C-alpha cells in the first residue's frame, strides 16, 4: 500500500465547492427523509410501541436515525457519486495526471464522504434537539462520531466501487447490505428483541457499534465498555481505508 499525502485536500475541496454550489438540489431531500422517518415512526409507531428500554419510542430511535443517515450519506457519495466521477466523467483520470496520486484522490473522496456524514448527522441532531429528544451534553460528540463512522462507510463504499463493473451493481450493495443494516443494527428495535442468530449477525454489522455509541452519547449513558465499540469502528475504518487504496490503485492504473 502506498500512503496518501496532504494533497488529498484538493479533491476534498473540489467536492466541497460543487456540493455547496448545488446544495439546494440534493441536501434538503437528504435531510427531509430522516426527519420524516423520525416523526412518522417515532410518533406513529411509537403510539403502539409505547416505551422501549425505559424511553419513549421516538427518543429511542432518534440516535439510531442519526447514525443510519450518516451511513447513507457516505455510502451514496462514495458509490454512485464516486462511480460517476470515476467512470462517466473521468474526473479521476484528469486528477491523477496532476501531482496528485491515486491514493490522494481516494483519500479525498473518503474524507469528503465522511464530511457528508458529519453534516447529515449534525443537522438531524440539531432537529432532534429542537424536538427535545437529546438529553445529554455528551451529544456534542455526535458530529465527531459521524465523521469517524463516515470514514468507515465511505471506505467500504469505495472498496465496493473499486470492483463495481457497472453503476447498477450498487443496487446489490444497498439492498443486500446497507438496507438490512438499517433494520438490524438496533436503530428501530433493541438487539435483544431479535432471535440469537440475528443478534450475532447484528454484532457483525458495522452500523451496530455506531448506533450503540450514538445512543449512549445522546442519552448521556457513558460506560467504559463503549470503548470497545469505538475501537471496533476505528479498526474497521483503518482496515477498509487501507484496502480501498490498494484496490483502487489496481483499478485506476491500467
Amino acid at each position, binding site marked *: 500500500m502506498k500512503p496518501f*499525502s496532504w*494533497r488529498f485536500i*484538493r479533491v476534498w*475541496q*473540489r467536492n466541497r*465547492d*460543487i456540493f455547496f454550489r*448545488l446544495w439546494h438540489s440534493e441536501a434538503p431531500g437528504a435531510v427531509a427523509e430522516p426527519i420524516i422517518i423520525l416523526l412518522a415512526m417515532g410518533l406513529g409507531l411509537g403510539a403502539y410501541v409505547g416505551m422501549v428500554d425505559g424511553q419513549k419510542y421516538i427518543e429511542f430511535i432518534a440516535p439510531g436515525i442519526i447514525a443510519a443517515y450518516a451511513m447513507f450519506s457516505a455510502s451514496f457519495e462514495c458509490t454512485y457519486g464516486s462511480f460517476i466521477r470515476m467512470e462517466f*466523467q*473521468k*474526473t479521476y*483520470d*484528469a*486528477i*491523477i*495526471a*496532476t*501531482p*496528485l*496520486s491515486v491514493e490522494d484522490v481516494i483519500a479525498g473522496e473518503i474524507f469528503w464522504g465522511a464530511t457528508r456524514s458529519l453534516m447529515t448527522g449534525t443537522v438531524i441532531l440539531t432537529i432532534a434537539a429542537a424536538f427535545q429528544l437529546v438529553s445529554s451534553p455528551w451529544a456534542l460528540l455526535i458530529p465527531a462520531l459521524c465523521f469517524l463512522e463516515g470514514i468507515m462507510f465511505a471506505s467500504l463504499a469505495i472498496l465496493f466501487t473499486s470492483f463495481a463493473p457497472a453503476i447498477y451493481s450498487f443496487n446489490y450493495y444497498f439492498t443486500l447490505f446497507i438496507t438490512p443494516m438499517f433494520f438490524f443494527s438496533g436503530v428501530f428495535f433493541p438487539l435483544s428483541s431479535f432471535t440469537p442468530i440475528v443478534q450475532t449477525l447484528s454484532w457483525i454489522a458495522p452500523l451496530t457499534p455506531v448506533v450503540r455509541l450514538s445512543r449512549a452519547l445522546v442519552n448521556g449513558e457513558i460506560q467504559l465498555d463503549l470503548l470497545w465499540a469505538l475501537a471496533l469502528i476505528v479498526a474497521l475504518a483503518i482496515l477498509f481505508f487501507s484496502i480501498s487504496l490498494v484496490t483502487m490503485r489496481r483499478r485506476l*492504473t*491500467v
Partner: protein
Amino acid sequence: MAIIKTKNLTKKFKDLLAVDSVSLEVEDGECFGLLGPNGAGKTSLIRMITAVSPPTQGEIWVMGNNLKTHSQQVKAFLGVVPQLDNLDQDLTVLQNLMTFARYFDIPKDEAHRRSMEVLSLFELESKRNSHLKELSGGMKRRLLLARGLINLPQIMILDEPTIGLDPQAKYLVWHKLTELKSQGVTQLLCTQNMEEATVLCDRVAIMHQGKILSLDTPRRLIAKYVGNEVWEIEVNSDERLRTVKELENRGLDFEEVGGKFQVFHIEDEKSVTGLVNSLGRLQRRQATLEDVFLRLTGRSLAE
C-alpha cells in the same frame, strides 16, 4: 540533452502487446511527433510517460528523474492534453481551470490571472462562465489545451490535440504550439494529421503495432521512403499488366494502390517518360509524410 528518455518500454494488456520495447529520446526544446494508425500504441505509450499508467516493463526518465520514484515531481512539470475529454463536467469553464490550478498548488490570485490568460489564448473568454454542456466539441478541445497550460509546463504531452477542430481553430492551436516551442517548451505530440506533424514536428516517429518503425525529421523520412515527388499513374484495366511489367523492367520503386500506381524515388525524369500512353493519366505531386506513413504502416500490415 534528452528531456524524456525511455528504455525498453513495454505495455501489455493481458495477451495484447500494446507497446513493444520502445526506446526513444526526446530532446529538450524539440517537438517530437508520434504517428501511427489506430491501435498502434501511441496513447498507451503517452499514458506511461505521463505516469498515469504503469509500464509492464522498462524505464522512463523525465528531466533526469526516474518516473517510477519521482512521478509526483515530474507531473508538476507536465502539461497533458489527453485524447479523451476529461474536463470536470460539474464545473464551469473558469472553475475548471481554477480547480485544476489548485491541484498544482497555484495560489488563487495567480490561478485566476493564468486562467484568464489561457482562456484568451484559446479565444474562450466569452465562455468563461458557461457550463461544460454549453460548449461545442471544439471549444472543449480548446479548453483542454488551455487547461494543459495552467501550470506553465516545461513539457507538453499532446494526444491528438486538434482532432475535431475547425480550420481556424486548428491554425490557432498550431500557432500557439509553435509559439510555445519558441519559448522552449518541449512537445511530445501524437497525431493522425500528417500536415500537423509536418508543420510542427522537428522529428517524427512512426509507430506500428507497438514498435517504432522509423524515426527522423519529416523531410528526411520523406526523402528516404518516397523521394521528393510522387507520380501517380492511372491506366485502363487492359493496360494494367503492361504497365506493371514496364515499371518492373525500368526498376522503379512503385506501389499499386486502389487501381492506381504510385511511383517513388524518381531520380531522373527520363526513367518515367513514355510509361503512359495517351489512354492513361499521369499526375505529379509533391511527396508528403502521408506517403511515408502509408508505405511504412501499409507495408508491414502485409508482412
